[in-house]
């Protein structure tokens, strides 16, 4: 191994420490089929932000049961309603979580479910309206695995 002088070693070590302290993307560890599922749902079209209120805990009590609530603004009439909502988790072994299908008879585009999150990651929701418009929202959920309670 090539010898490094003290100044170089210090810089290397310092740089390494800096890197670990830098905020990393929540899903730095796993690449799953999130992009593929999103592409299939959106047909390649870029969703806009807005209309969606996605409610998840900031820190999950336990990753095996995480409550999720979603509300999407829409008149929910036959002419204008939320048709389908894709929910994915970008850090799970498989990104798919659920696909919700609303109708004007839903009254409100609102639902609550409980999901499993394997690690700290982003949960992404994409709503497809009856006129084809796409909206998206995402939330980061911190998931820890405790050494005693699990």
């Amino acid at each position, binding site marked *: 191994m090539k010898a490094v002088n003290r100044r170089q070693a210090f810089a290397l070590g310092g740089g390494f420490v800096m890197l670990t302290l830098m905020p990393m993307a929540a899903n730095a560890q796993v690449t799953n089929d999130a992009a593929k599922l999103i592409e299939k749902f959106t047909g390649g079209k870029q969703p806009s932000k807005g209309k969606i209120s996605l409610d998840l805990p900031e820190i999950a009590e336990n990753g095996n049961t995480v409550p999720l609530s979603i509300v999407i603004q829409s008149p929910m009439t036959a002419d204008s309603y939320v048709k389908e909502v894709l929910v994915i988790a970008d850090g799970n072994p498989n990104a798919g979580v659920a696909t919700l299908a609303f109708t004007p008879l839903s*009254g409100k585009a609102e639902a609550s479910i409980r999901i499993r999150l394997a690690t700290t990651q982003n949960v992404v929701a994409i709503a497809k309206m009856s006129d084809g418009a796409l909206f998206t929202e995402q939330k980061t959920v911190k998931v820890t695995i405790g050494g005693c309670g699990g």
Partner: protein
Amino acid sequence: MADKPRIKLPKEAAKGEIIQIKTLVSHIMESGQRKDAQGKIIPRKIINKFTCEFNGKPVFACALEPAISANPYIQFDAKVEEAGTFKFVWSDDDGTVITAEEKITIKA
């Protein structure tokens, strides 16, 4: 034999009122990710679909993946225009279904 699902919704509603429906069903939702004591993968077995109809018309449905927690809880809304019957169906990977029905009347 499957356990009875737990469902909560009002017994009656005003015409045009939007009601909230809460459902809970007992199911292990085996993800297909777990291994048994011998290290073999435990095969996936989940409820993959839930549908709710009112008087035969679709109200709400969802496709579920293994990322849904065991004992799936599904809460959604329904706009009640007339008296009638809600029909709920949970479909298992193995083709079996769990069904339930709840009636609702219109307030005078």
